[in-house]
């Protein structure tokens, strides 16, 4: 049984702290997730007043059957600590659901399921000095960080181009550098690093870096990832993306979260994704919906 109920009955939030305007960092205890999760996978979190403990149910209350907002929210896993049996999330508390997550207090419970989805695949690089590059926009950072930690542990060199609106929301910048990542940043307002889109910075990086990365991993808004994919394709560098679609169930039964493949099929973002090879995706096939 992949997701037995007992594994998710009493997940405790150890901490839930704001780390940047609108961004929160949560540490959760789960033996299963800490040991099984791969970089790029996500958890489906109940994010509602009831789930946040703001409304307390009574015995026989059917509160747990009713969540408002209705859907769970998919949140990429940021880090795992198998020896401590904890895992971490970084999320943006901006939408109708995620704002409830920011209200969960330390030492209270959280209702979530995971790990879900297809993860990033690190192909074996050249034996000497394998190098990969990450391109992240906004809250696309967390799953790439998970991957970067693994890659560095395996001896990869990691270049990273991080984009954000402003300096204050460049997530975990110091820690990335401490990990040994070669980090360049771009901000829309120029308060740090390159002023402009991270995709422009990425193009400049591809032109100027002497050793090209063997593979590129990207996560952020679709329009950003599409540009990254195009730039990667020009240099024939394989590129993996983490798709973001409105999700219903998150485990493959509602068939609502589909993306279109280049062969014209609809694949589930929660099963055949979210991590996919960029050249498999029909980038023209998306529809943007307002749900966070």
């Amino acid at each position, binding site marked *: 049984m992949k997701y*037995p*109920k007992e594994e998710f009955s009493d997940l405790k939030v150890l901490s839930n702290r704001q780390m940047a305007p609108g961004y929160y960092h949560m540490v959760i205890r789960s033996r299963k997730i800490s040991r099984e999760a791969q970089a790029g996978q996500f958890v489906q979190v109940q994010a509602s007043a009831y789930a946040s403990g703001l409304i307390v149910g009574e015995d026989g209350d*059917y509160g747990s059957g009713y969540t408002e907002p209705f859907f*769970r929210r998919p949140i990429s896993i940021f880090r795992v600590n198998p020896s401590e049996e904890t895992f971490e999330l970084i999320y943006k508390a901006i939408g109708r659901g995620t704002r409830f997550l920011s209200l969960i207090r330390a030492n209270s419970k959280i209702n979530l399921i995971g790990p879900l989805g297809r993860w990033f695949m690190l192909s074996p690089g050249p034996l000497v000095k394998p190098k990969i590059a990450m391109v992240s926009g906004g809250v696309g950072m967390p799953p790439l960080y998970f991957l970067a930690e693994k890659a560095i542990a395996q001896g990869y060199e990691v270049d990273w181009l991080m984009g954000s609106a402003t300096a204050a929301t460049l997530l975990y910048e110091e820690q990335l550098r401490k990990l040994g990542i070669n980090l360049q940043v771009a901000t829309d307002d120029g308060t740090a690093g390159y002023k402009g889109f991270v995709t422009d910075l990425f193009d400049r990086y591809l032109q100027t870096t002497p050793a090209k990365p063997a593979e590129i991993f990207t996560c952020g808004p679709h329009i950003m990832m599409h540009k990254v994919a195009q730039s990667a394709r020009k240099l024939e560098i394989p590129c993996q993306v983490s798709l973001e679609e409105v999700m219903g*169930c998150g*485990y493959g039964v*509602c068939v609502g979260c589909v993306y279109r493949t280049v062969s014209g099929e609809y694949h589930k973002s929660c099963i055949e994704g979210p991590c996919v090879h960029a050249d498999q995706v029909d980038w023209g096939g*998306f529809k943007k919906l307002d749900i966070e």
Partner: protein
Amino acid sequence: MQQNLTSVNKSLDTQISIAGLTFKNAVITASGTSGYGYELNQFYDLSQLGGFTTKTITLKPRIGNAPGRIAETPYGMLNSIGLQNPGIEKFLEIDLPALQPFDTRRIVSISGDSAEEFALMAHRLEEFKSKIDLIELNVSCPNVEKGGLSFGADPDATRTVVQAVKKKTTIPVTTKLSPNVTDIKSMAKAAEEGGSDALTLINTLLGAAIDINTRRFKISRKVAGFSGPAIKPVALRMVWEAKNAVRIPIIGMGGIATAEDALEFILAGASLVAVGTAQFINPYAGIEIIRSIEDYMVKYNVSHLKDLIGTAQ
């Protein structure tokens, strides 16, 4: 093997028999909300369910609708999936065998463009009758594009489809009714007259939602099926109305998320109940409902679940 997992003091009989079939308990999953079984089986042993209904199968494979298939609404959701499915042949080759290891009643949902197509599919399924317990006729999917009404809005069309299917198969048949009609009682009667062994209701209501920031409909097909706890009062009313209109058993669904909901439907006249959309937010809903119904039976000294059917006043 029936498992009574609650009290050791009393023996609880949760068995329900309809259309010549025995269900170990009253809880099944609704079509389109539980895939083909292997997905849900990752969360709990599917054998605990009274029954399992597959995603609707069509004659030919369908790729489904463009993205913009789902949207959340207060206590519910809209969906316009477009009946994405591998087609009957692939289903018979791969998904039907995958369902066999589970000790649960196997309900296969089919949909066609015409009565002939329904009959053709029924004829094909008849060859697999040892692997199928009940066929559910999806005459009411609001997402399939057809000029004019869906079958489920036309009593004559409904009756014709049921008759055509009954001619081609000995497997028991239930007809899944659409709520998007003026009078559910006449639809229920039409299906009964056509020879349906049971009725399944309700399918989704019709709804829409608009994103005011992009100024676009949230669903690519604009009008979509509406489901979830918000629709429960409508579904419950229709189950009760249908129960009063026909003699065949009713399988009730529409917004069921908890045992309390399920019991309302049983008390209103449903012999079986299905959990559907609630599984998207809680994959364990099915087994939680089964357990909590048993708790209710213990609390109220109900020895036989079937004694509750239709007893609301």
